[in-house]
Protein backbone atom coordinates (compact mmCIF):
# COMPACT_ATOMS: atom_id res chain seq x y z
CA UNK A 1 0.00 0.00 0.00
CA UNK A 2 1.26 3.46 -0.90
CA UNK A 3 -0.31 6.91 -1.09
CA UNK A 4 1.06 9.71 -3.25
CA UNK A 5 -0.28 13.25 -3.37
CA UNK A 6 -0.91 16.02 -5.86
CA UNK A 7 -2.25 19.42 -4.85
CA UNK A 8 -4.09 21.48 -7.43
CA UNK A 9 -6.48 24.41 -7.11
CA UNK A 10 -7.37 23.74 -3.49
CA UNK A 11 -7.82 20.00 -3.97
CA UNK A 12 -5.48 17.49 -2.38
CA UNK A 13 -5.56 14.36 -4.53
CA UNK A 14 -4.64 11.19 -2.61
CA UNK A 15 -3.66 8.49 -5.07
CA UNK A 16 -3.94 5.20 -3.23
CA UNK A 17 -2.10 2.19 -4.60
CA UNK A 18 -2.89 -1.30 -3.32
CA UNK A 19 -5.63 -2.75 -1.11
CA UNK A 20 -7.79 -0.96 1.46
CA UNK A 21 -8.78 -3.16 4.39
CA UNK A 22 -8.56 -3.26 8.17
CA UNK A 23 -4.80 -3.78 7.90
CA UNK A 24 -4.04 -0.78 5.65
CA UNK A 25 -6.85 1.73 6.42
CA UNK A 26 -5.16 3.24 9.47
CA UNK A 27 -1.91 3.96 7.60
CA UNK A 28 -3.79 5.47 4.66
CA UNK A 29 -5.74 7.66 7.06
CA UNK A 30 -2.58 8.86 8.83
CA UNK A 31 -0.79 9.58 5.61
CA UNK A 32 -3.72 11.62 4.23
CA UNK A 33 -4.29 13.49 7.50
CA UNK A 34 -0.61 14.47 7.72
CA UNK A 35 -0.40 15.59 4.11
CA UNK A 36 -3.63 17.56 4.36
CA UNK A 37 -2.37 19.39 7.46
CA UNK A 38 0.80 20.41 5.59
CA UNK A 39 -1.07 21.48 2.46
CA UNK A 40 -3.11 24.57 1.63
CA UNK A 41 -5.91 22.45 0.21
CA UNK A 42 -9.54 22.80 1.18
CA UNK A 43 -10.86 19.54 -0.27
CA UNK A 44 -9.66 15.94 -0.41
CA UNK A 45 -9.99 13.88 -3.58
CA UNK A 46 -9.60 10.09 -3.25
CA UNK A 47 -8.16 8.60 -6.42
CA UNK A 48 -9.12 4.90 -6.61
CA UNK A 49 -7.56 4.19 -10.01
CA UNK A 50 -4.94 1.86 -8.50
CA UNK A 51 -6.96 0.36 -5.65
CA UNK A 52 -7.26 -3.37 -6.31
CA UNK A 53 -9.51 -4.17 -3.34
CA UNK A 54 -11.63 -2.31 -0.80
CA UNK A 55 -13.91 -3.56 1.97
CA UNK A 56 -15.97 -1.65 4.53
CA UNK A 57 -12.81 -0.51 6.34
CA UNK A 58 -12.43 1.83 3.36
CA UNK A 59 -15.94 3.20 3.90
CA UNK A 60 -15.05 4.08 7.50
CA UNK A 61 -11.83 5.72 6.38
CA UNK A 62 -13.54 7.89 3.71
CA UNK A 63 -16.42 8.86 6.04
CA UNK A 64 -13.82 9.80 8.66
CA UNK A 65 -12.23 12.32 6.28
CA UNK A 66 -15.70 13.59 5.27
CA UNK A 67 -16.57 14.29 8.91
CA UNK A 68 -13.23 15.97 9.53
CA UNK A 69 -13.55 18.27 6.53
CA UNK A 70 -17.14 19.17 7.38
CA UNK A 71 -15.74 21.13 10.32
CA UNK A 72 -13.60 23.33 8.05
CA UNK A 73 -16.14 23.60 5.24
CA UNK A 74 -14.12 21.34 2.94
CA UNK A 75 -15.46 18.61 0.67
CA UNK A 76 -14.50 15.03 -0.10
CA UNK A 77 -14.65 13.65 -3.64
CA UNK A 78 -13.79 10.36 -5.30
CA UNK A 79 -12.39 9.75 -8.77
CA UNK A 80 -11.69 6.67 -10.87
CA UNK A 81 -13.92 4.29 -8.91
CA UNK A 82 -14.36 1.05 -10.86
CA UNK A 83 -17.39 -1.26 -10.79
CA UNK A 84 -16.36 -3.13 -7.66
CA UNK A 85 -15.52 -0.15 -5.46
CA UNK A 86 -18.57 1.55 -6.98
CA UNK A 87 -20.76 -1.16 -5.48
CA UNK A 88 -19.25 -0.64 -2.03
CA UNK A 89 -20.01 3.09 -2.47
CA UNK A 90 -23.63 2.26 -3.43
CA UNK A 91 -24.35 -0.24 -0.65
CA UNK A 92 -22.95 1.99 2.06
CA UNK A 93 -24.67 5.14 0.87
CA UNK A 94 -21.25 6.76 0.54
CA UNK A 95 -22.20 7.99 -2.93
CA UNK A 96 -24.75 10.36 -1.41
CA UNK A 97 -22.16 12.27 0.61
CA UNK A 98 -19.01 11.77 -1.48
CA UNK A 99 -19.61 12.76 -5.12
CA UNK A 100 -17.82 10.54 -7.65
CA UNK A 101 -16.22 11.87 -10.83
CA UNK A 102 -14.22 10.55 -13.75
CA UNK A 103 -11.20 12.67 -12.88
CA UNK A 104 -9.83 15.82 -11.28
CA UNK A 105 -10.63 17.92 -14.36
CA UNK A 106 -14.29 17.07 -14.02
CA UNK A 107 -14.30 18.15 -10.37
CA UNK A 108 -12.61 21.46 -11.21
CA UNK A 109 -15.02 22.07 -14.06
CA UNK A 110 -18.01 21.43 -11.81
CA UNK A 111 -16.90 23.16 -8.62
CA UNK A 112 -18.88 26.30 -8.21
CA UNK A 113 -21.68 25.10 -10.45
CA UNK A 114 -23.56 23.27 -7.80
CA UNK A 115 -21.74 20.09 -6.79
Amino acid at each position, binding site marked *: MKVTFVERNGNLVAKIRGEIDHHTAQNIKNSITNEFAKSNAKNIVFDFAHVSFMDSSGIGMVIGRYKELQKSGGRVFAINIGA*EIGRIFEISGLKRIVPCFAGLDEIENNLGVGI
Partner: protein
Amino acid sequence: MQNIFEMKFLAISQNQAFARVCAAAFAAQLNPTLAELNEVKTAVSEAVTNAMIHGYGAGCDDEKWIYLRCQILDNEIWVEIEDKGMGINDIAAAREPLYTTKPDEERSGMGFTVMEEFMDEVVVHSALGEGTVVKMSKKITQ
Protein backbone atom coordinates in the same frame (compact mmCIF):
# COMPACT_ATOMS: atom_id res chain seq x y z
CA MET B 1 -18.34 -31.66 -7.28
CA GLN B 2 -17.47 -31.67 -3.61
CA ASN B 3 -14.33 -30.30 -2.01
CA ILE B 4 -13.32 -29.05 1.42
CA PHE B 5 -10.47 -27.05 2.88
CA GLU B 6 -9.75 -25.79 6.34
CA MET B 7 -7.07 -23.61 7.92
CA LYS B 8 -6.37 -21.53 11.00
CA PHE B 9 -4.33 -18.36 11.26
CA LEU B 10 -3.41 -15.82 13.93
CA ALA B 11 -5.85 -12.98 14.43
CA ILE B 12 -3.41 -10.29 13.31
CA SER B 13 -4.26 -7.82 10.58
CA GLN B 14 -1.30 -8.94 8.43
CA ASN B 15 -3.35 -12.11 7.76
CA GLN B 16 -6.35 -10.18 6.46
CA ALA B 17 -5.37 -10.27 2.79
CA PHE B 18 -3.93 -13.79 3.11
CA ALA B 19 -7.24 -15.21 4.39
CA ARG B 20 -9.46 -13.67 1.71
CA VAL B 21 -7.06 -14.67 -1.07
CA CYS B 22 -7.06 -18.30 0.20
CA ALA B 23 -10.86 -18.42 0.16
CA ALA B 24 -10.97 -16.85 -3.30
CA ALA B 25 -8.32 -19.25 -4.67
CA PHE B 26 -10.39 -22.20 -3.43
CA ALA B 27 -13.61 -20.74 -4.89
CA ALA B 28 -11.82 -20.29 -8.22
CA GLN B 29 -12.37 -24.03 -8.88
CA LEU B 30 -15.99 -23.16 -9.69
CA ASN B 31 -14.89 -20.82 -12.49
CA PRO B 32 -16.56 -17.75 -11.03
CA THR B 33 -16.57 -14.42 -12.82
CA LEU B 34 -14.10 -11.82 -11.55
CA ALA B 35 -17.03 -9.98 -9.95
CA GLU B 36 -18.19 -13.12 -8.11
CA LEU B 37 -14.67 -13.82 -6.93
CA ASN B 38 -14.36 -10.28 -5.64
CA GLU B 39 -17.67 -10.64 -3.80
CA VAL B 40 -16.46 -13.78 -1.99
CA LYS B 41 -13.17 -12.04 -1.20
CA THR B 42 -14.89 -8.97 0.19
CA ALA B 43 -17.37 -10.97 2.31
CA VAL B 44 -14.52 -13.04 3.79
CA SER B 45 -12.58 -9.86 4.49
CA GLU B 46 -15.54 -8.42 6.41
CA ALA B 47 -16.01 -11.55 8.54
CA VAL B 48 -12.28 -11.80 9.29
CA THR B 49 -12.17 -8.08 10.22
CA ASN B 50 -15.07 -8.63 12.63
CA ALA B 51 -13.31 -11.61 14.20
CA MET B 52 -10.14 -9.56 14.72
CA ILE B 53 -11.66 -6.29 15.89
CA HIS B 54 -14.76 -7.42 17.73
CA GLY B 55 -14.13 -11.09 18.48
CA TYR B 56 -10.65 -10.69 19.88
CA GLY B 57 -10.37 -6.92 20.30
CA ALA B 58 -7.11 -5.05 20.59
CA GLY B 59 -3.83 -6.65 21.57
CA CYS B 60 -4.05 -10.00 19.83
CA ASP B 61 -1.44 -12.50 20.99
CA ASP B 62 -0.28 -15.96 19.99
CA GLU B 63 -3.30 -17.77 21.35
CA LYS B 64 -5.90 -16.01 19.20
CA TRP B 65 -6.81 -18.09 16.17
CA ILE B 66 -9.28 -17.55 13.39
CA TYR B 67 -10.58 -20.65 11.60
CA LEU B 68 -11.50 -20.56 7.93
CA ARG B 69 -13.36 -23.48 6.43
CA CYS B 70 -14.52 -23.60 2.84
CA GLN B 71 -16.61 -26.15 1.08
CA ILE B 72 -17.68 -26.55 -2.50
CA LEU B 73 -20.99 -28.32 -3.00
CA ASP B 74 -22.02 -28.60 -6.63
CA ASN B 75 -22.00 -25.00 -7.86
CA GLU B 76 -22.09 -23.44 -4.43
CA ILE B 77 -19.26 -22.12 -2.27
CA TRP B 78 -19.66 -22.24 1.52
CA VAL B 79 -17.37 -20.23 3.77
CA GLU B 80 -17.19 -20.44 7.53
CA ILE B 81 -15.18 -18.00 9.67
CA GLU B 82 -14.88 -18.77 13.36
CA ASP B 83 -13.26 -17.02 16.31
CA LYS B 84 -13.07 -18.09 19.95
CA GLY B 85 -13.42 -14.51 21.16
CA MET B 86 -15.92 -12.60 23.23
CA GLY B 87 -19.05 -13.33 21.19
CA ILE B 88 -21.79 -10.97 20.04
CA ASN B 89 -24.26 -9.66 22.59
CA ASP B 90 -27.09 -8.83 20.17
CA ILE B 91 -26.73 -10.46 16.75
CA ALA B 92 -29.78 -8.72 15.24
CA ALA B 93 -28.39 -5.30 16.21
CA ALA B 94 -24.90 -6.19 14.95
CA ARG B 95 -26.39 -7.02 11.53
CA GLU B 96 -28.12 -3.64 11.23
CA PRO B 97 -26.49 -1.29 8.69
CA LEU B 98 -24.32 1.39 10.33
CA TYR B 99 -24.40 -0.38 13.70
CA THR B 100 -20.99 -0.22 15.32
CA THR B 101 -19.69 -0.57 18.84
CA LYS B 102 -16.53 1.31 17.82
CA PRO B 103 -17.54 4.63 16.22
CA ASP B 104 -14.33 6.29 17.43
CA GLU B 105 -12.21 3.93 15.36
CA GLU B 106 -13.77 4.93 12.05
CA ARG B 107 -15.61 1.64 11.71
CA SER B 108 -18.46 2.06 9.25
CA GLY B 109 -20.80 -0.55 10.74
CA MET B 110 -21.35 -1.95 7.24
CA GLY B 111 -19.56 -5.29 7.58
CA PHE B 112 -22.62 -7.56 7.81
CA THR B 113 -24.47 -5.48 5.23
CA VAL B 114 -21.65 -6.07 2.74
CA MET B 115 -21.62 -9.82 3.54
CA GLU B 116 -25.38 -10.02 3.01
CA GLU B 117 -25.19 -8.06 -0.21
CA PHE B 118 -22.36 -10.12 -1.71
CA MET B 119 -23.35 -13.62 -0.56
CA ASP B 120 -26.66 -15.50 -0.96
CA GLU B 121 -26.97 -16.47 2.66
CA VAL B 122 -25.28 -15.35 5.89
CA VAL B 123 -25.89 -17.21 9.15
CA VAL B 124 -24.38 -16.08 12.46
CA HIS B 125 -24.00 -18.20 15.59
CA SER B 126 -22.50 -16.59 18.65
CA ALA B 127 -22.19 -17.26 22.37
CA LEU B 128 -20.88 -14.71 24.85
CA GLY B 129 -17.42 -15.65 26.06
CA GLU B 130 -17.16 -18.52 23.60
CA GLY B 131 -16.95 -16.98 20.17
CA THR B 132 -18.69 -16.43 16.86
CA VAL B 133 -19.18 -18.43 13.69
CA VAL B 134 -20.25 -16.76 10.45
CA LYS B 135 -21.37 -19.16 7.74
CA MET B 136 -21.97 -17.84 4.24
CA SER B 137 -22.88 -19.41 0.94
CA LYS B 138 -22.97 -18.27 -2.65
CA LYS B 139 -24.08 -19.99 -5.83
CA ILE B 140 -21.63 -19.46 -8.66
CA THR B 141 -23.21 -19.00 -12.08
CA GLN B 142 -21.86 -21.50 -14.58
